[in-house]
């Protein structure tokens, strides 16, 4: 559902915004507005304006769409492909962690021991509203 909505939305920048206001999908979910696209862009931090990003997403959606070819009428959905397996329970012991240095090597940017993320979809509280660090 979501994928389809994006997929329809994606065509907009390429096909010149035409599809945005009037398209309905085959399932009849209704119109997809510019606002929806902008909302999704903000949530997902994906810029649909980039041709390359759109192409990649289109491919992913097309890949997932092949699932629709399978006829699932009358088949009871499984909870999980592992639904008849035992869920392994771990004892409550600390056996991992303490590898900040290794993990931070994956980060494009690092400040002290923090990962640095772009200011994305999270509304930023003003600096003076932030609390002092608990050590004080």
């Amino acid at each position: 559902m979501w994928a389809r909505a994006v997929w329809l939305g994606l065509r907009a920048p390429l096909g010149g915004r035409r599809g945005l206001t009037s398209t309905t999908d085959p399932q009849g979910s209704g119109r997809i507005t510019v606002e929806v696209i902008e909302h999704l862009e903000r949530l997902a931090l994906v810029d649909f304006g980039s041709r390359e990003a759109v192409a990649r997403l289109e491919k992913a959606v097309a890949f997932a769409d092949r699932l629709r070819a399978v006829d699932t009428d009358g088949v009871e959905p499984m909870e999980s492909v592992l639904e008849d397996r035992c869920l392994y329970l771990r004892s409550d012991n600390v056996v991992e962690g303490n590898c900040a240095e290794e993990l931070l090597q994956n980060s494009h940017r690092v400040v002290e021991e923090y990962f640095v993320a772009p200011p994305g979809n999270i509304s930023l509280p003003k600096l003076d509203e932030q609390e002092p660090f608990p050590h004080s």
Partner: protein
Amino acid sequence: MAAPMLRWGSPGRRWALAWGDGGFRQRRGSPTGSASNRVRGQSSGAQQLLDTAQKPRKGKHEWAALVGLEIHAQISSNSKLFSGSQVRFAAPPNSLVSFFDASLPGTLPVLNRRCVEAAVMTGLALNCHINKKSLFDRKHYFYADLPAGYQITQQRLPIAVNGSLTYSICTGKKQSQMITKTVRIKQIQLEQDSGKSLHDDLRSQTLIDLNRAGVGLLEVVLEPDMSCGEEAATAVRELQLILQALGTSQANMAEGQLRVDANISVHHPGEPWGIRTEVKNLNSIKFLAKAIDYEIQRQIDELENGGEILNETRSFDYKLGCTMPMRDKEGKQDYRFMPEPNLPPLLLYDATSLPAGTDSQQVINIDQIRERLPELPRVTRERLIQQYGMLPEHGFALLNEVGLLEFFQNVIKETRAEPKKVTSWVLNIFLGYLKQQNLAISESPVTPSALAELLDLLDSKAISSSAAKQVFDELWKNEGKTPAQIVSEKQLELMQDQEALEQLCCAAMELHPQVVMDVKKGHPRAINKLIGIVRKMTLNRADPAVIKEILEKKLSS
């Protein structure tokens, strides 16, 4: 208007957490602020709403409010819900992170047995039905402090459902009446916590600490059976005490181990429920009550002025004492729930369904956990009332501070003094000193043994009650001395010498003939003046009752 709140523990002592929390919950600390505290249309629970509707005043419709809560409690465990990294507050950034917590490709969740047991135990304590089979799902968010892009939770089939939480509210002029209320618990589900985001406006960047990412949470969903801030705050406080008694969560709000979101709506009794808003950022019990009462009044004002309530998420600004819409929560989010493919269903057993020949480490027996349930706060309070003839509000006060009940019980064990006297000293004098200096029970300079010894001296009439207060003050200031030492050093013993007392009484009567005349003229209360004079002469070391007896004898002769 219902009664003011019980005295809460001191949640504001250590303010924590700088970080705006981009994850599932926004969070800010909250020192003082003020908010209006008016609620109209009190009622107790959804069912009774229609019955308790008050008569409309001045032609205006009465309003009723409904408050439901979503409470996230961090599970008290050594390691995280699905990984073996440590759970600890205020550790160096990203030091408690495993490859799974950082969502590195190829890592898989491995469920922590302790977290499951904590959920079952909490469910049992809250009278829930425990689902023998529960399921894990993915809930998708796009936040930098949730690197997987989804949270593992229990959406379709949570571990516990259909419970209830009973709490009591003090009411009446002297706060001495208790009203017991019940709120239904819809469900309890296991889920992962998110990491923390630290926003840097100046450099326009967000710093990410994943230490909290993957810590086990219990989400407890309370039905909208509450009708004002005080009811919600009292229910949360009771839940907090239960979690702490169980040891399933430390539930310290200042450290973010207990976080509350409130769903609030108002309507006219007898009419359909109103549109609700969700208020986040409720991280102390005091501000929880304030925020809810503010939001109820805001909705009423909005509707009475012809406005409408939007189904939106708002956050409470503790400085301004009001709620504001949260811009990043605009519009309805699609969480794209899907079954967690890496975790089979979670199966629990009881004595009758326990499979034979399985590894006991791999089986969780609900009956066994039920047997391990400790005494819950409600039962403790009832026991205090039964055992010591205590007033209900004193039982509440003893349970309201961490370690206070234990302190009280240790004093009781060692002293001959009456429980009533012990209760009064612990709740008034001892607690008063602690509050004045903002100390925790564990930081008290006076030990239970010292207080017990002091109360023994008082009980055996070796010292007067005003001398006892003086001794207590000395005990507080001079650690290491015993009450007996202080009494002898300061010469605080009660004068037992009857003859000496009689002499002092005679002297007092001679010095104040006018007062003696007053008494004889039929003003029996004037004797109190003489008692005071004699007490002063004894440096407060005589029992006023004994002085009174002597004086009465002399005056009537």
